[in-house]
């Protein structure tokens, strides 16, 4: 191990798609941490879903050996960070484990909302920021313009590096800049151990692997360790570093980045942001910044076939081992039967869990529309936290409802400002600021209800700005709001899984939108099916699915048999995937239809 003066700990931060993972790959390849033969594109993004979507969900780390210009060899610890707003807390913890960051900006796209968010987070954490313009190999790269934008943020022109992670140009210079500009780790090597948990993952053989940055002191094999927030006491069974492949070591010392295994059974026992200390000689004060994961978005998860309930339960339990932010508890719906109400950090987190359940565990899922938590104060003074519209109390016992709010930063071309403001206002947003941090690009801040962001907000934003807007948001407090529960009646029967909560002013238009969307999604039945949206006893909207009158093939001769039989088989298979609600066959997509209701 190198002396402290030759260790540099850093992260790469970037807006989605600006080439963070490709740059990480190139750094690993150039420093020879992984031989070219073992190099798979984007070694750090290990989950299928991450690689397919080009986003990083779980952070990974890699120790990179580097011989600098002074002829000395250095250890550069790359701490990869998740790349989505849902995981901003995880990002902040990963950054807390570093002394500096590479702020990567796409040479074509320029600054985006998350570029700025990351930049400010890094500044607030007191980190050295190295601005890096990536993708200079692209024919339409505009290094000059992007440099000017970065200078407008306060960087000197000479500080800005230009690289192509794809072909490797400028990457060597970048490695040298890490050595030159980043300070070595600071801390007290003799103090009791304090190590920051910035990530963890579950390994079926060794239990939870906690990813650590040792801030003070040291830890050795066989020592007893304690989680200061989690509370558990364990014996340190394995220590190691990521190269990025795990390699065992006997000791991790101040300033180092590595992992620890101690027979821990669930990641929930090792929350991200927690401090590891020694059992025998504990630190007095934990490291700053720990915050338990708080689910913000809730949705019902039901097996498409009731018989798969146990498979779903088992799959959720396994996922939770590896995902401390996922919470769930059993719930029952009259329409969907037995299932779970699950809590997520945000919409992307929900989607990732949904995809993993379907892909890795083979569960065919029906998901209900995502929902936020409403704090409902009743006239008797008690307070409820409602994460499921069907638990919403009757209006006459409600005194006050509070909804969660976010501060949303939208970064968009100047000419799209009007369109963005219009959307934000439609979604009950209140204007905070408008700035032009760089010429032609506007930064808008709005305070918006979190619930509104779920209704297709990002897609709408993209379509109003021809794809040029980016969004970042942070949860900030609650506000009193006049919310209303809207029920949906199919064939005269209320379907609990279709109920939703919205602001009184939107109830009618959303109710109508949902009815229209359901009419489109629900196939014709043997009888006429009325669809109604109602608030209490007041009908807000009504649509009708006419009865199926004609479903017969005009011809079926020798040459038609195979093709037409397949049509019928497909029709049947489609019905198999539907849920029967009362007498009506409802396709799975219908339970998410409210998200599209705003558009119709």
């Amino acid at each position, binding site marked *: 191990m190198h002396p402290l003066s030759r260790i540099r700990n850093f992260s790469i931060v970037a807006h989605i798609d600006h080439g963070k993972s490709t740059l990480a790959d190139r750094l690993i390849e150039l420093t020879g941490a992984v031989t070219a033969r073992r190099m798979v594109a984007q070694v750090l993004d290990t989950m299928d879903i991450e690689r397919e979507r080009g986003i990083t969900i779980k952070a990974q780390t890699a120790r990179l050996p580097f011989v600098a210009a002074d002829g000395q060899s250095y250890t550069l610890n790359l701490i990869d960070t998740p790349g989505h707003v849902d995981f901003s807390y995880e990002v902040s913890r990963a950054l807390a484990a570093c002394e500096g960051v590479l702020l990567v900006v796409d040479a074509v796209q320029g600054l985006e909302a998350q570029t700025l968010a990351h930049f400010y987070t890094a500044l607030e954490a007191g980190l050295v920021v190295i601005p890096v313009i990536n993708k200079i190999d692209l024919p339409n790269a505009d290094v000059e313009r992007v440099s000017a934008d970065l200078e407008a943020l306060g960087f000197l022109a000479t500080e800005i590096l230009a690289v192509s992670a794809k072909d490797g140009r400028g990457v060597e210079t970048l490695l040298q800049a890490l050595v030159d500009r980043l300070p070595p780790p600071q801390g007290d090597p003799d103090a009791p151990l304090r190590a920051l948990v910035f990530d963890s993952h579950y390994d079926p053989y060794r239990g939870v692997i906690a990813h650590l940055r040792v801030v003070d002191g040291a830890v050795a094999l066989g020592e007893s360790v304690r989680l200061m927030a989690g509370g558990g006491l364990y014996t340190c069974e394995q220590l190691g570093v990521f190269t990025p492949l795990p390699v065992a070591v006997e000791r991790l010392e101040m300033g180092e980045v590595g992992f620890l295994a101690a027979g821990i059974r669930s990641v929930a026992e090792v929350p991200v942001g927690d401090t590891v200390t020694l059992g025998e000689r504990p630190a007095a004060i934990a490291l700053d910044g720990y915050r338990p994961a708080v689910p913000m978005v809730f949705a019902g998860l039901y097996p498409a076939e009731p018989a798969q309930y146990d498979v779903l339960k088992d799959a959720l339990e396994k996922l939770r081992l590896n995902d401390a932010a996922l919470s769930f508890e059993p719930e029952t719906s009259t329409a969907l039967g037995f299932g779970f109400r699950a809590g997520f950090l945000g919409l992307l987190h929900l989607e990732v869990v949904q995809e993993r359940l379907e892909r890795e565990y083979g569960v065919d899922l029906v998901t209900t529309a995502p929902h936020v938590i409403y704090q409902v104060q009743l006239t008797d003074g008690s307070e409820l936290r409602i994460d499921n519209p069907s638990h919403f109390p009757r209006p006459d016992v409600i005194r006050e409802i509070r909804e969660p709010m976010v501060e949303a930063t939208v970064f968009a071309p100047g000419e799209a400002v009007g369109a963005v403001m219009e959307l934000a206002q439609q979604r009950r947003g209140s204007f905070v600021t408008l700035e032009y941090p760089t010429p032609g690009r506007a930064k808008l801040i709005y305070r918006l209800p979190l619930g509104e962001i779920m209704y297709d907000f990002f897609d709408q934003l993209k379509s109003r700005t021809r794809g040029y807007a980016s969004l970042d948001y942070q949860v900030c407090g609650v506000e009193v709001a006049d919310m209303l529960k809207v029920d949906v009646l199919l064939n005269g029967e209320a379907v609990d899984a279709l109920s939703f909560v919205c602001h009184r002013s939107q109830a009618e238009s959303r109710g109508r939108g949902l009815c229209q969307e359901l009419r489109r999604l629900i196939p014709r039945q*043997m009888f006429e099916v009325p669809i109604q949206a109602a608030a209490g006893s007041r009908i807000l909207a009504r649509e009708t699915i006419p009865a*199926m*009158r*004609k*479903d*017969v*093939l*005009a*011809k*079926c*001769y*020798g*040459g038609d*048999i*195979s093709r037409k*039989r397949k049509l*019928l*088989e497909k*029709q*049947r298979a489609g*019905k198999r995937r539907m849920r029967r609600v009362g007498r009506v066959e409802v396709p799975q997509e219908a339970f998410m239809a409210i998200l599209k209701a705003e558009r119709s």
Partner: protein
Amino acid sequence: MAAPVGVYVHWPYCPSKCGYCDFNAYLLPRRPHAYADYTASLLQEISLAERTGDLSGPLQSCAFGGGTPTMFPVEQLVQVLGALRQAGLAPDAEVTVEANPGDLEVAALGRLAEAGVGRLSIGAQTFSDPLLKAIGRVHQASDIGRAVQMAKRAGIRRVNLDLMYGLPGQSQADVAYALQRALALGVGHVSAYALELEPATVFGRRAARGELALPSEQSVIEMGDLVEETLSAAGLYRYEVSNYARPGEESQHNLAVWRRGRYRGFGAGAHSFIGERRWWNVASPLLYSRRLAAGEGVVAGEEDVSALAMGEWVYLSLRTLVIDTERFGQEFGQPWQDVFPASTLWAVAEGWLSWQGQTLVVAKERRWLLNQIAERFLEEGALSQRRLTPCADAG
């Protein structure tokens, strides 16, 4: 192995392409030898099939379809029929030829009758000239009567008229008039098809763009009901979803298909079903001829339906609106109730089917929704077959 009881020959050329047509049909070729080349290929495929034993069964029916078979020189049709006779087509087999009303000649029809063609199926579609024009037909209403007379004079005993309803711009009155004219011509068989929009047709594309003034679903149903009432009142009973005949004048070839009989198809895009294998030839006539000339196979795709046999049997039977459960038992050696307990219970309880002796009959008011029954039986058939023949996979 189940042997074929019928043969089908595909003649792929047409004088024009109709807006609704998604058959494997091509506009009249410019090359002078196209007809002769194609016929030579047919003869070649027939003789190959003879050698491979595909035609081992007693062949009881033969259908010439298209396209428009009568566009080919009549001697070529006769030559192919001759080859099929040699290959085992029974002397008393029913031979049907499809024809357009506009391009028939008595002499040619006489030649076909002599060669054993006993049934002419005429594509009349409607008796309204503006409608005929609108759907892309080249004949006129007056041609239809003339064609029927010619067939009779030529000695062809049975004549079918194809009619269509639900056409763009068509009214109830048009349908009523067509039925009246057809009956007045004294034909013993009528096929009446509701227009189906196939995406890859002129009509399919126009409908997708909203450019087709189609009658409402309700009017189409009324038209279909009118067809059934009018034809049954005149003694033509409905023996299949879209087919009506005087008793004894049913199409033997098609009846065999709906009984899941085996058949061998010749020509471009033709389908065959022998044993439990369904296969189909390459669609393009040019490619078909070129492959045969090069000594290559012409099969474009195939399907083993042994695991689907029972369900498919019901799906086809349902075309005739009755299910003969006794015949099912004889054919598969499994009692009907063991194979389709759930679907039968459901269909009878919900009023889709009713028992008449050993036969299940489709309720009259549910005939418009036949797919709803068929898809259930297809599914249960496949499941039961897996259950009842557990060794099939291993074997």
